[in-house]
């Protein structure tokens, strides 16, 4: 009997044991789990699982290619630098300086290039590109430089990105119905997205307590519109 590991949170599905408390009988084969089965810990879909002991493609593949060097900061990059420094100010209890950085962040965000043809498919393409080359290259660069801080943030954001990938795939299959009777939460520390009745007790990626999650509102309207 085989075991499958969730690449987002590390949960292990053991065919031998199943998940009796969730109605999955012991001995249930991985292939026999329904398409829309999700990780009982973090909510990631089946595509986010890897068979235990089988190395993933990125480990076997050649060294990922380096992205091109960039000189100029884009407006959005500057916006992120500012909103991040605003958080830094907040942690040091400097609310006025935080406010100023937030004002600059907003200014830069608005001066970014508008997206002419926005679509979730394009987001999905970027997410897959991050997972295929962005993160493997980053991990190898940070590993060679023994940069523990960078490695930590790459590990977290890669997991968050895997979850994103899984959610976008589910959305393509199930449509807005996947949010029926569900709420959407985002961890304000690492960005992990959780779909469920309430925020998890601990963030499956960065392990902060549930009160650090923020509820994302406004989805119900779209869902209702699509159902009419």
């Amino acid at each position, binding site marked *: 009997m085989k075991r499958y590991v969730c690449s987002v949170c590390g949960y292990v599905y053991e065919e031998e044991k199943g998940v009796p408390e969730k109605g999955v009988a012991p001995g249930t084969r991985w292939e026999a789990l329904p398409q829309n089965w999700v990780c009982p810990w973090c909510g990631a879909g089946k595509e986010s699982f890897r068979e235990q002991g089988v190395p993933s493609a990125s480990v076997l593949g050649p060294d990922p290619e380096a992205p091109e060097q960039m000189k100029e900061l884009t407006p959005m990059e500057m916006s992120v630098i500012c909103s*991040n420094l605003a958080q*830094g100010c907040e942690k040091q209890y400097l609310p006025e300086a935080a406010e100023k950085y937030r004002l600059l962040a907003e200014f830069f965000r608005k001066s970014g290039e508008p997206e002419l043809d926005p679509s*979730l498919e394009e987001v999905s393409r970027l997410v897959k590109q991050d997972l295929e080359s962005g993160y493997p290259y980053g991990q190898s660069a940070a590993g*060679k430089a023994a940069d523990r801080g960078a490695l930590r943030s*790459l590990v977290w954001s890669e997991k968050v990105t895997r979850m994103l990938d899984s959610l976008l795939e589910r959305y393509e299959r199930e449509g807005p119905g996947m949010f029926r009777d569900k709420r959407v939460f985002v961890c304000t520390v690492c960005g992990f997205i959780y779909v469920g009745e309430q925020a998890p007790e601990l963030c499956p990626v960065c392990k902060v307590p549930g009160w650090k999650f923020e509820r994302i509102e*406004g989805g119900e309207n779209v869902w209702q519109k699509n159902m009419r």
Partner: protein
Amino acid sequence: MAEKYAVRNLRLCTKDCLCLYVCPTGASDTENSIIDREKCMGCGACAQACPSGAISMVPRIMPPQQPKEETVKTALRALIRSKNRQEAIAGALPGVLAQAVARSARLTAEDLCREGGYMLPQSENARQFLQYVKELPGIPAETAEELLREFFGEQS
């Protein structure tokens, strides 16, 4: 000015007010409960007295963040740019998923940016950044200058 000053974690504070009682300068007695950084002389009396462990002493000048390898910086920036686009696209779409994607992309970009050399508002990187942006056309330059004055005592 002393090297340290006191900050109060409002989540831990139970409002017993021992810190008000022991503070020689009145720095801990403010309307918004944020200890006055200018008045605080860094004696640490409040931190020792607090029964809730809500006050910590933080250095006024932070040690510089470790220098970053170019390869690491390039890798982080490429990912940040990808997250930026994800945020911009999702931000232009309706629905709860798009909204969550935009928020998440911003948060991950911020975390990568923190490790890319912008951890502290007191850092040299932050100073150079502000120097650079205050010359950009259309920017609220006054705000950037105020931040330069506040953190680096720079006059323009």
